């Protein structure tokens, strides 16, 4: 039987030691009439497969798929086709001492994992400017939901005599994130208000001011936002803080932190985001991880695992889980979150990738992306029949074009996976496409997409066939 090493002889010896005749006797607490029979009567699973058969089966499934490597690829929206260093896979996937370890509850035999979490927190600090961060959340969406809960707790605790239970989602927030926040708010009974984007693609500042009241506990904003536009975070912070509420910034493309002002400098209270872009494969959107950072004074309200530097009995540097009384295994129903298993290995991948890029590489990465994005924006903007949306607003790696709808299939037939049709995810009009650029996007990719699109537009303008 796969992966079971013991033989019938081993089993017999163990049964004899226990003093029972069969393993079945060990299940006597389960009423016989509902036990599955020895032939597995009612469980309809396939017969056991060996290594060769399962490989063949997976190959067959993969034949029914295409991926980013099969196209000039322009899709992003929170999951980006970055280069993942071979070092990342070698260390995180193939060194069994990271991937087959458990949560580091026993510090003496988990210093490897604990040290990497500390280094990961340090990198999060370097990127966001915040003094405290955790070992990671499930993803960007749930990290935002948890940050909103934390922002609510911070405000509610500070103004105990007021009822401050409103959450404001401001501007173009990723629909998957906004949806998750909505679910969490509904289940916990918080009121959710949304403030839309203005004509420049940024948060409608006047609408936000109008939405503010003493009932608002927390404001959430994405920057760069879902349309790729960089928000004026400082002014949103000012509006929120005037109202003595907390503000959360969520980031879907953490590589933007190579260039942009840190959330701490901008004055936000909590910064979270989707970490996939750093060292994690796309995997249909998961697993990656959510990062979570805030100011030092908020540490006791943070969800998730946190590692601190300390010493061992002999005065040597050591690392240990810290402030565990926040967590569910101790505080139970009063915990800051129910999170237990997180996405540690994905955070380790990010750490390896950041180290592999290094300070200089990370900066160069950001600069390459912005150059390529500017080139792409100009190239598409020059096509007859293509309009750049929010053309006057600054972007980092993504932007929206408006053109004729329904050309996707024709582009794909030419090996081009163009931008995401926003109509499909209820974030725009027919013909709006969100185009994402990474360091893997070449000039040739951009040129071929642009010229194919221009050709298709021209042909369709003349009423001709494709």
């Amino acid at each position, binding site marked *: 039987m796969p992966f079971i090493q013991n033989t019938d002889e081993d089993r017999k010896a163990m049964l004899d030691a226990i003093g029972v005749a069969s393993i079945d006797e060990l299940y006597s607490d389960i009423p016989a009439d509902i036990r599955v029979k020895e032939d597995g009567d009612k469980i309809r699973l396939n017969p056991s497969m060996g290594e060769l058969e399962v490989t063949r089966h997976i190959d067959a499934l993969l034949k029914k798929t295409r991926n980013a490597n099969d196209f000039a690829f322009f899709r992003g929206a929170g999951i980006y086709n970055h280069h993942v260093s071979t070092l990342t896979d070698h260390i995180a996937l193939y060194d069994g001492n990271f991937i087959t370890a458990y949560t580091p509850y026993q510090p003496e035999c988990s210093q490897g994992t604990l040290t990497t979490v500390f280094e990961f927190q340090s990198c999060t600090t370097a990127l966001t400017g915040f003094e405290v961060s955790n070992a990671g959340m499930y993803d960007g969406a749930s990290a935002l939901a948890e940050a909103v809960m934390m922002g609510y707790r911070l405000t509610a605790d500070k103004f105990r005599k007021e009822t401050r239970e409103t959450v404001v989602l401001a501007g173009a927030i990723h629909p998957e994130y906004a949806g998750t926040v909505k679910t969490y708010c509904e289940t916990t009974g918080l009121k959710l208000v949304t403030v839309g984007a203005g004509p420049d693609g940024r948060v409608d500042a006047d609408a936000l001011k109008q939405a503010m009241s003493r009932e608002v506990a927390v404001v959430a904003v994405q920057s760069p936002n879902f349309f790729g536009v960089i928000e004026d975070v400082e002014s949103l912070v000012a509006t929120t803080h005037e109202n003595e509420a907390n503000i959360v910034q969520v980031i879907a493309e953490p590589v933007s932190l190579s260039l942009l002002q840190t959330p701490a400098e901008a004055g936000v209270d909590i910064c979270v985001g989707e970490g996939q872009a750093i060292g994690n494969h796309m995997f249909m959107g998961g697993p990656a991880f959510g990062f979570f950072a805030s100011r030092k004074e908020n540490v006791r309200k943070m969800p998730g695992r946190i590692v601190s530097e300390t010493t061992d009995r002999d005065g040597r540097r050591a690392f240990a889980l810290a402030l565990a009384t926040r967590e569910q295994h*101790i*505080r139970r129903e009063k915990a800051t979150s129910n999170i237990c298993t997180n996405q540690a290995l994905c955070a380790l991948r990010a750490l390896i990738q950041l180290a592999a890029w290094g300070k200089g590489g990370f900066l160069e990465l950001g600069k390459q992306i912005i150059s390529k994005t500017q080139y792409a924006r100009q190239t598409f903007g020059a096509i007859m029949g293509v309009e750049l949306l929010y053309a006057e607003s600054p972007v980092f790696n993504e932007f929206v074009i408006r053109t004729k709808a329904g050309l996707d299939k024709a582009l794909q037939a030419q090996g081009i996976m163009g931008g995401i049709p926003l109509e499909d995810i209820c974030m725009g009009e027919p013909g709006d496409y969100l185009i994402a650029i990474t360091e893997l996007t070449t000039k040739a990719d951009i040129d071929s997409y642009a010229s194919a699109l221009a050709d298709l537009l021209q042909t369709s303008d003349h009423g001709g066939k494709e």
Partner: protein
Amino acid sequence: MRLKHELRADVHIRNTNERLTMARPDNARYLESHEWGRLEDDGTVTIGITDFAVDQLNDLTFVDLPEAGDKVTKGEAFGEIESVKAVSDLISMVSGEITAVHSDVDDDDFSALKSDAFGKGWLIKVKPDNADELNEGTKSLAEYEKQLEEEAH
């Protein structure tokens, strides 16, 4: 505090007779959950936790106390005290308004609490709505010490 609900990892419970027992006041009332409360001459009730509780919690790390002016309710938590791997509610013996809070009780690694749990280690003072509540459902010193003996088997 609910010591029965403790996660005692790392808390090496010391043998009861090894412990330095400090004199427990017999003019105070006690809760099964190891808080004490004493009616002062000025009519306020001072509340703290017993030396036994301090000893059991061992590695104290953090205390979360309310603010003066806040209301407390008899039988309900007014704050929390934490050790490395445990957190316990602090339960009030009376309802009323908090008049004073010992906000720096955690100074110097909780030395006031450790050296003088019934004096310098007090936690809050409450102006009770009804001072008689202090005697309702609470224990005398003798009853409390009997409980401790029973808990030690």
